[in-house]
């Protein structure tokens, strides 16, 4: 009897305790209206991801740094003056300021912004370019390696006005990091004075450093420094520095040759020009640079001077465009998220009798469209029907940037394109090189 009473009392007590606890209430799902409120709610927070319009970005980024957070700053249209002052504040606070206009980072295995599902490993990356980081890190994953940290700096970090503040900070972090054995640096060509400073710093580091200033073309080694021409070579050089001997994934020669032969056979004489339609800015820049060795003059919205594209919506002779630029994205989503704009452009190009070949990138990973290959394959089929009605063929090379662990399923994406008779290259340099071979056959 006493036992039952004691048990009953215990049960009652437990029930009272349960009742006293607040039910799963609204407080738990509160959405804060400011950075300050968010940090109060989540004191563990250590990174702010900021993508507000440029005019407000400085204010939010500054507050985040003051609150002791690191910052991934996706916003663009921040003045150079504000960028410098944010980076100085970050340095004083011993925090990272990745950006502005930073698209990709990998921090302790987490992909921030547009990033691929890359294995963790011992290669550290400091990068002034988003899709450059995506291409290098994805290829490292294919090579059986992985990334310790990929730190973004924003596209203008190596300009004279900023002086590489973020890159120097990133280099020092990776030099000290016991989980990083090899360091990769990638950027568009820096201003000469900043390049000198970066190279001098790299030369003092106790680790191999692979340097890829896209568009500069330097190669060879010098002490602990190795210079590479392409993003793919950069991944390969990093792997070799790690002691790996796996070759880059590549198309076999027979597939390449038969693609060229078939394309030539179905071609009309006036089909002479390439149209490169890129979603990835750095991939586009690399294509532009690699093609310069092959053909005379490629028009682009990334070019200044004689080969600058006067109308971004009209191609001219050889044209390679970055569809992620402001002229195309105003008022709509980036083509990596919403392929509509690029697909329209493909249909447009298909009706130009001078088009010989399309070169396209397909970026997978977090943040990218859930099934881009399906839409692309469908569009190419429509485009070919248009070309066919006028008696032309339309060969297409697509380079996929992604890993086997990406949410879109790499194998499915590649198979979808191949089934649609599209040549799928394993990296951008391979795709561009093959395109270059075809153009040489047409123009010799």
């Amino acid at each position, binding site marked *: 009897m006493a036992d039952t009473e004691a048990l009953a009392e215990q049960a009652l007590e437990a029930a009272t305790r349960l009742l006293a606890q607040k039910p799963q209430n609204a407080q738990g799902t509160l*959405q*804060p*209206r*400011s*950075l300050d*409120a*968010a*940090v109060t*709610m*989540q004191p*563990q*927070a*250590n*990174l*702010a*991801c*900021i*993508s*507000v*319009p440029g005019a*407000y970005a400085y*204010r*939010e980024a500054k507050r*985040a740094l003051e609150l002791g*957070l*690191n910052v991934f700053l*996706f*916003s663009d249209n921040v003045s150079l003056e504000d960028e410098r002052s944010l980076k100085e504040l970050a340095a004083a606070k*011993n*925090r*990272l300021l990745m950006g502005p206009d930073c698209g990709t980072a990998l*921090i*302790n*295995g*987490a*992909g*921030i*912004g*547009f*990033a691929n*599902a890359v294995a963790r490993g011992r290669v550290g990356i400091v990068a002034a370019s988003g899709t450059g980081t995506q291409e290098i890190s994805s290829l490292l994953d294919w090579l059986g390696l992985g990334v310790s*940290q990929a730190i973004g700096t924003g596209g203008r970090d190596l300009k004279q006005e900023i002086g590489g503040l973020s890159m120097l900070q990133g280099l020092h*972090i990776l030099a*000290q*990091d*016991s*989980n990083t054995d090899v360091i990769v640096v990638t950027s568009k060509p820096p201003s000469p004075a900043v390049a000198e400073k970066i190279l001098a710093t790299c030369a003092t580091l106790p680790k191999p450093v692979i340097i890829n200033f896209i568009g500069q073309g330097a190669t060879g080694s010098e002490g602990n420094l190795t210079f590479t021409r392409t993003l793919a070579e950069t991944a390969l050089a990093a792997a070799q520095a790690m002691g790996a001997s796996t070759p880059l994934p590549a198309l076999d020669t027979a597939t390449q040759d038969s693609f060229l032969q078939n394309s030539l056979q179905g071609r009309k004489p006036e089909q002479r020009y390439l149209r490169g339609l890129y979603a990835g800015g750095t991939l586009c820049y690399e294509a532009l640079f690699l093609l310069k060795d092959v053909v005379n003059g490629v028009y682009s919205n990334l070019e200044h001077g004689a080969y600058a594209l006067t109308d971004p919506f009209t191609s001219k002779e050889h044209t390679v465009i970055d569809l992620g630029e402001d002229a195309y994205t105003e008022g709509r989503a980036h083509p990596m*998220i919403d392929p509509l704009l690029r697909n329209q452009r493909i249909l447009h190009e298909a009706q130009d009798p001078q088009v010989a070949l399309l070169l396209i990138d397909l970026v997978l990973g*977090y*943040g990218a469209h859930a099934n881009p290959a399906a839409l692309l394959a469908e569009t190419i089929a429509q485009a070919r029907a248009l070309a066919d009605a006028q008696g032309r063929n339309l060969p297409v090379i697509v380079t996929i940037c992604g890993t086997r662990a990406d*949410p879109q399923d790499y194998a499915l994406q590649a198979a979808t394109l191949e089934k649609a008779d599209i040549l799928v290259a394993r990296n951008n340099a391979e795709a561009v090189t093959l395109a270059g071979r075809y153009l040489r056959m047409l123009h010799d």
Partner: protein
Amino acid sequence: MTDTGNPLLAGQPPCVVNVGIDLFAETLRQQSITVVQVLWKPPPPQDDDLLNLLDSLI
């Protein structure tokens, strides 16, 4: 990682506050990263007369 004094690089997955595009919070949740989304809106334009008036009424 060697202690850099920066808690972000201490080896644990980051803990993120997302200010702006919801997509970036979604991609982090896909990776099981803790994210707090801020309901952000542009600050109201500063109007000194109005702010002074407010001060006298509140």
